[in-house]
């Protein structure tokens, strides 16, 4: 398994993009006691695409991510990663294969600097043994230097976070923390990047920046993106494929345009999407009260 981990893919779409999907989720179910968080979920994410998972709150999106990354064990079903089943692998092994992710509630390590957080992402790919580490000079040092150079050149510059590399993460603003999470995921030599609500809590401007980063990662690094997001503006604009979950089941999937017109999806998730209408209703209510 481990042997087929390739170094970071070069820019440009992989040759065999169409052949195997980067991720194929087949009939996955996950139960919490009586609660069916996931129920027969089947979909796949093509290599080099942006696939978005949307759905109402509590539909099971985060649970799906947790199942894919091995934090939860699926009760049934199977998950294939570039054609190989990962069902029997634990979370760390899946990470090593190139499943990188960010978390809905930022999960940076608050006791470390930005740089160390990013370096940590590479953990599974490093070899330093205990004795090497205790002695440091020699193998451990060589490996650390190599990592440092790569992070500086490929990630820190790319995400424009060079000014904060030595800052403790706890002191960063929300938006920067999200960016550091992305950086850490990139350090994991991702073949698929799973982003759980990457732009939640950001305003339009910051969302635009993040969207740009995501597209750049996809295009320049050739990484497949799997994303959960409630910002429909962004999802519809940058996704190639959208999967809709509701009560743990896939209720629709397809191109963004199809999805945004699907009546079931509108009823369960999207709503009218018409702010003007809300505004009108509000004005009406206000008027009523003033009359009364």
């Amino acid at each position, binding site marked *: 398994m481990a042997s087929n981990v390739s170094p970071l893919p070069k820019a440009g779409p992989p040759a065999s993009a169409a052949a195997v999907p980067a991720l194929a989720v087949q009939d996955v179910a996950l139960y919490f006691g009586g609660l069916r968080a996931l129920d027969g979920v089947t979909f796949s994410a093509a290599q080099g695409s942006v696939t978005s998972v949307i759905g109402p709150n509590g539909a099971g999106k985060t649970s799906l991510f947790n199942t894919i990354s091995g*934090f939860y064990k699926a009760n049934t079903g199977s998950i294939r990663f570039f054609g190989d089943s990962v069902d029997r692998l634990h979370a*760390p092994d899946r990470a090593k294969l190139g499943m990188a992710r960010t978390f809905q509630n930022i999960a940076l*390590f*608050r006791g*470390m600097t930005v740089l160390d957080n990013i370096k940590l992402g590479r953990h599974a790919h490093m070899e330093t043994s205990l004795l090497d580490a205790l002695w440091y000079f020699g193998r451990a040092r060589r490996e650390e230097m190599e990592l440092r150079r790569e992070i500086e050149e490929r990630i820190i510059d790319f995400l424009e976070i060079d000014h904060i590399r030595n800052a403790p993460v706890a002191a960063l603003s929300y938006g920067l923390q999200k960016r550091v999470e992305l950086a850490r995921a990139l350090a994991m030599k991702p073949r698929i990047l799973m982003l759980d609500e990457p732009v939640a809590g950001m305003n339009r401007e910051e969302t635009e920046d993040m969207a740009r980063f995501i597209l750049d990662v996809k295009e320049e690094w050739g990484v497949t993106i799997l994303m959960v997001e409630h910002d429909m503006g962004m999802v519809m604009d940058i996704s190639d494929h959208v999967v809709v979950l509701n009560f743990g089941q896939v209720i629709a999937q397809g191109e963004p345009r199809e999805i945004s017109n699907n009546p079931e999806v509108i009823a369960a998730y999207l709503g009218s999407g018409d702010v003007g209408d809300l505004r009108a209703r509000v004005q009406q209510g206000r008027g009523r009260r003033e009359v009364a």
Partner: protein
Amino acid sequence: MRIGAAKQTYAADEALFDTTVQRAWLIGLFALLAVFPFMAGPYWVYMACLVAINIASATGLNILTGYTGLVSLGQAAFMGVGAYTVAWLEVNVGTPLPLNLILGGVVAGLAGMVVGVPSLRVKGLYLAIATIAASVILHFVFSHWTAVTGGVSGLTMPPGSLFGLTLDEPHELYWVIVPVTVLMVFGAANLFRTRIGRAFIAIRDRDISAEVLGIRLLRFKLLSFALSSFYAGVAGGLWVYFFRVVTPESFPLVMSIFFLAAIIVGGMGSILGAILGAAFMTMVPEALKLVVGWMSPWVPDAVALLSPVRTIVFGGLIVLFLIFEPQGLAEVWRRVRRFFHLWPFKT
């Protein structure tokens, strides 16, 4: 774009001691350590050895508790394992000193690993209490496995020897204890520049997300336990070369608390912290004795009266540091250094 002391290479940026001034300090420190036994009286050499032993053990505990976030109240018991192993080897096998120390560390490390097994499921303070259980069980073993441990009266051993020299005085043992401690401290400092140290810290900060990022939790928690008890075991080995007798009462629970207090007072999760903390906490009772000595002409029975004060001071230090200086002495040290760094330009 870099601000401040610009470094030319990444290697320089990652070095432990990155400025010439710091290197000079370090060399000065080594020089001091080298001439110390020739300048100081036997009592101070004795204290230096004791401080060094405590530093070794506290550094180990700091790896586990300060860096990996697993609170342990079993450090003294693991020292006991190391001490018994070394004493047993000295008495029954007669293997050379360096090997004994390493074996003491290894046996203690294995014991620590066993104790660490529940750490995957048992968390936080529950785990801390489980380590108390470990030390109670080890104490039972020490006092009842008479064939090996000599039961309640313990093991008495002949002085150790190295290169044909018999080491039976502090100023001889100094040359074993201090270098071993220095090596162990450097090992620990190096550790946290590599992936292993980072994994430990990640586990401390949030273990479940660490797992998803590729860190094998069980392996690294056990590694942390093993390493920390290895340090304890070696420290225990040094201890027994120093005192030459080990009984079940030699490593009581309060000693584990002492080490925990040392890393808190020094600064959890800081190599320098463990050093300063262990030294400070070992020296404070001595300083108190001095104070009492000065006061005795004026205060009748000062020795007897002021001695509970030591217990109070021990507790008081823990409390005061936690409330007023939670980052410990290491932070105080950094502040002092910053002051002199900027002095006289700013304050």
